[in-house]
């Protein structure tokens, strides 16, 4: 699997209203890699992910998956949103099975087996009959991940998947996602504004500078992931986090009084 983003730009609006949101993005993701893209709100990171998913079309440039240009959404690129994405009328198992049923390329038996397998993978095998509204936000996001994986994607796109969760649940979910990646070696692209999350999970962290969104820095991590909770307080990890924060600050100074970045031209 080779996911290739070549000089992608995205403009919203036309004429005088036109606003350049992404400028000349180049990105390459290979099988089994976990990539993170960090940026503050307004940096265009969600737009970039939506382009990768095929929900938006780049104004210029090309996105290719295994040499084939991406023209729209498809089951080879699974997507997990921040929230509101489970089908409220289906129980957890039916939610996981839904994508496979839509595609029509899985047999009934396969659907049953894969549903059970992926519910087990996210640790919810014994909760299969619950409705989404009976579940916590963390459980719902685990189901959303299981559903995306069960549909058989080549790459998993995660749009701030834990952004709506409480801090301590977020840490648990980050540990869960890392162990999931370790076990399945899935290919993933994570959008986040949480620097710790990005460094903890990804091997490659791209910084998206705003106005217009462009990749300004790329960090490669090489930590010992034996104990994630210890790693969070490891000195080289914290140093790397500091470097990342400085990189973000350098491309996007924040006015300390208003907490807003100054407007440019």
């Amino acid at each position, binding site marked *: 699997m080779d996911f290739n983003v070549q000089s992608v730009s995205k403009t919203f609006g036309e004429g005088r209203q036109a606003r350049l949101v992404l400028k000349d993005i180049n990105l390459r993701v290979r099988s089994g890699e976990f990539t993170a893209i960090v940026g503050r709100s307004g940096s265009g990171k969600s737009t970039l992910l939506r382009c990768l*998913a*095929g*929900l938006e079309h780049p104004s210029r440039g090309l996105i290719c998956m295994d040499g084939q240009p991406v023209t*729209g*959404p*498809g*089951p080879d*690129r*699974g*997507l997990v*949103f921040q*929230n*509101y*994405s489970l*089908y*409220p*009328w289906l129980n957890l198992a039916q939610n996981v099975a*839904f*994508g496979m049923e*839509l*595609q029509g390329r899985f047999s009934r038996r396969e659907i049953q087996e894969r549903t059970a397998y992926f519910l087990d993978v996210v640790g919810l095998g014994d909760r299969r009959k619950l*409705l989404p*509204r009976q579940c916590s936000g963390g459980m719902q996001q685990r189901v*959303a991940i299981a*559903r*995306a994986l069960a*549909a058989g994607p080549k790459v998993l*796109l995660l749009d701030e998947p834990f952004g709506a969760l409480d801090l301590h649940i977020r840490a648990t979910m980050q540990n869960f996602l890392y162990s999931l990646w370790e076990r399945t070696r899935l290919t993933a692209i994570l959008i986040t504004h949480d620097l710790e999350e990005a460094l903890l999970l990804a091997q490659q962290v791209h910084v998206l500078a705003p106005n217009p969104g462009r990749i300004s820095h790329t960090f490669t991590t090489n930590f010992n992931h034996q104990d994630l909770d210890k790693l969070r307080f490891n000195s080289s990890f914290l140093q790397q986090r500091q470097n990342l924060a400085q990189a973000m600050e350098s491309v996007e100074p924040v006015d300390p009084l208003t907490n807003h970045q100054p407007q440019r031209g």
Partner: protein
Amino acid sequence: MTAHTIRRWFSSEALRSSVWRLGLHATSLLLPLLLWLVVSHAQVVDPAFLPSPAQVIESLWSMARSGILLADASASIRRVMLGFLLAAVVGVPLGILMGSFATVRALLEPLSGFLRYMPAAAFTPLLIIYLGIDEAPKIVLIAIGTVFFNMLMVMDAVKFVPQELIETTRTLGGSQRQVVAQVITRYTLPNIIDTLRINMATSWNLLVVAELLAAEVGLGKRIQLAQRFFRTEQIFADLLVLGLIGFAIDLAFRLLLRLTCRWAV
């Protein structure tokens, strides 16, 4: 009794107690009945204008025994149901399509918004010219008066389907058609049932107008005849029956909602 206690009785917290709520429900029906009993017994109003409950029940009983009541009620229910069904079969799918596709909305919204303000009763002369004086014009009249409300209310309900749910379905491999049939329609089903429940009242309202068109049997027709012979107790009796049937249908819709959409109630 302090103001505080009174305020507590009317708080929403108190309403959660089912005994208190049931008591209020009973009061809402029994108090007017009591008032009616008192006023008619005291003969404040001429009994020719305000018959006593006993007279009304007697009239009801004699109509029931002679079979008029059953004939009237079944004729009226049949008309309303056919007109309502026609309005549902046409209005609900169009409403879903209008809510889902901007093009369909642009095409149909101005027209339905315009036609909605033409009183259905004003179509009566045309319907007689086109369809004669049989059942057809009555059913079509009820359908015309209901269908535009169905379309616009269902269209509005579709707007509340979360965008994330639609986009997730697309990335799971769902086609446009599957999104409309299996996600948008399913998500809006509770609202569709509720829309139909509310618009059922509109259909009933049009019944009396429809039965002005040379009907031989029907509850509305019976009321007109009773007026001609100044039989107010019969008017009261038929009004009661109309209210009871409407109330029963309303309950049936609520039950349907509970049975089919447990996730939403």
